[in-house]
């Protein structure tokens, strides 16, 4: 994709502003460092962001650290503990983490003006700061660290505070740190297969493929089969609505072969849905972005009844499609949904069902809510805003004042 492709979505002036910012950073080498080249949200965003950074005049590089299975088991444990899981790291695990980090320190080319390190796996690379005195170092945390396990956070904090700046996705993830902390939300790409416009025919084709009836209202939750997304609770919501409104429920999500829990959740959902032909439980394989896009677009109401959430980009995707969304007030969802302005927030099964009925019976209100939601996403959560924030972040590294003339 080229920047000019986004003009039709966000307007020419917004793109022009990005080019102006890029000019202020022309020739700067930005080296992103993370732990995987494929799969996962970080790799996805770097794949989309780097070509745009290059287009506005920077030179974006991307390096990936190396590590064995055991190293990544330890960093997975870091991840869970940063989410608040009550576990402990052994001395051996710490040693393994540091040893692998040392090998990466020795072998990696880290020359750049700005070194942008993503998540905890490569965090120790900051030890090379003294070798690259003119470089600016940023640590980008993509994880919910609102209530981190103290052992792992204290361990990481010593490294974090050696960086020039840090970046978090939500205000609630902010910490008391000696370095600057910036707030940059994630984004969706409006031109990706998951979010681009689809023809009516394509949507109908997907509905037909999955055996979903047209003309009967559709409630949908498109999310992984995970207890924290409460798919069983969604069926309970549907049943309360179904008493008064003849509707269908679509529960669609990916299944991960390496996550035994997802198969268990799926089995429970199938059991709960048994005997009702209006409930469509769809285990969708990876790389089915067009299908997910079509199901979101076909829905009359989209739910995200999560018990806990990170940012919830599934909500962003649905709002971008101008869908009325009813979602739990957890994680990053309240950042996207202002109750009764850009969607509806709920906390219980009964409350969720109440709002779904309201929306299905008041299509004009549902439409207005959806349109406001789309406008809010357009303003705040698209890839172009994300690119703008990264450019501003790079500029901020060279200034200390709060009002900067560039």
């Amino acid at each position: 994709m080229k920047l000019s492709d986004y003009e039709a979505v966000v307007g020419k002036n917004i793109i022009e502003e990005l080019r102006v910012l890029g000019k202020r950073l022309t020739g700067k080498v930005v080296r992103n460092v993370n732990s995987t080249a494929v799969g996962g949200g970080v790799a996805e965003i770097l794949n989309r962001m780097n070509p745009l950074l290059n287009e506005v005049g920077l030179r974006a590089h991307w390096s990936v650290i190396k590590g064995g299975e055991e190293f990544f088991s330890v960093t997975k444990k870091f991840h869970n503990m940063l989410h608040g899981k009550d576990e402990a790291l052994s001395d051996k695990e710490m040693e393994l983490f540091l040893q692998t980090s040392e090998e990466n320190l020795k072998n990696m080319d880290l020359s750049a003006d700005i070194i942008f390190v993503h998540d905890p796996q490569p965090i120790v690379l900051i030890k090379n700061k003294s070798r690259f005195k003119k470089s600016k170092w940023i640590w980008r945390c993509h994880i919910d660290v609102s209530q981190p396990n103290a052992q792992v956070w204290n361990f990481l904090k010593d490294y974090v505070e050696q960086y020039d700046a840090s970046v978090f996705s939500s205000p609630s993830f902010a910490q008391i740190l000696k370095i600057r902390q910036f707030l940059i939300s994630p984004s969706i790409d409006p031109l990706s297969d998951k979010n681009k416009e689809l023809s009516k025919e394509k949507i109908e084709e997907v509905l037909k493929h999955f055996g979903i009836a047209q003309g009967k209202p559709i409630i949908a939750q498109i999310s992984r089969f995970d207890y924290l997304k409460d798919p069983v609770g969604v069926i309970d919501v549907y049943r309360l609505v179904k008493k008064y409104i003849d509707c269908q429920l679509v529960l669609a999500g990916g299944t991960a072969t390496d996550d035994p829990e997802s198969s268990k959740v799926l089995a429970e959902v199938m059991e709960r849905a048994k005997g009702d032909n209006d409930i469509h439980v769809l285990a969708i394989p990876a790389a089915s972005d067009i299908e997910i896009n079509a199901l979101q677009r076909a829905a009359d109401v989209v739910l995200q009844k999560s018990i806990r959430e990170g940012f919830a980009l599934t909500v962003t995707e649905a709002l971008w499609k101008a869908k009325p969304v009813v979602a739990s007030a957890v994680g990053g969802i309240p950042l996207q949904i202002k109750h009764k302005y850009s969607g509806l927030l709920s906390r219980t099964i009964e409350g969720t069902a109440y709002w779904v009925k309201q929306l299905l019976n008041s299509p004009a209100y549902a439409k207005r809510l959806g349109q406001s939601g789309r406008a809010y996403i357009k303003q705040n959560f698209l890839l172009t805003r994300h690119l703008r924030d990264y450019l501003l972040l790079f500029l901020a590294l060279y200034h200390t004042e709060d009002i900067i003339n560039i």
Partner: protein
Amino acid sequence: MKKLKKAKQAFTFYTRLHLQELTGYKARDLKGLLKGIKELSGSVIYHHTHRFLQQHQFLSPEPPNDFAYWVAEVLGEHKLGEELASVDVIQFSSIRALREKLIQTIENHIRYMENTGRGQFRVSGMEEQFHFIKTISFVFPTSYVVHNLLEFVESLKKVTINSIYFHVFEAKLRLEKSINDFSYWIDTNCGENELSKELARLDPYTYTLEGLRTKIINLIEKRIK
């Protein structure tokens, strides 16, 4: 169309972009909020009294500031929420003065509650804490440079809302100019004193940014027809 005067000096439309910086400071009750308002930088006050203007501009001109919203919706202090919401930001020409007004409003409320035996203030849940954030502004010129009112109004139709925002809100309050940039230029460079006054009289905080753009365009077009 009226014959238009050439401006003494051209007007360059500037724009500004914002980056949000987290302070790490949080409040869970009214006294914590007050402490943050008193002690944190002016850029924090600016952020929480102006964020909604940008992020919610398509939805509604309300709610006007984060403090009012949090106090009413999270702490359930609706009276204080309304008092904070109705602080007339346009009246203040500096963040310092605005900060003082916010402090005074909250302190009066706390005193009143304590004097009437209702000094037990609600504490928010962990997930609903108030997070203090500050705004870093980046200001730069656009390619729109105009020499008379007609060029001005045509450019006003094209610039981003960020540019309008900068000249109307930020230049006046954050850079402590006594009047918004548009009114100043129209008066001193185009000799349109009445039109300048009309623009200065608008309360921009009660419009969405697109609504404000339309309003200013209409006023100028009415004048130059």
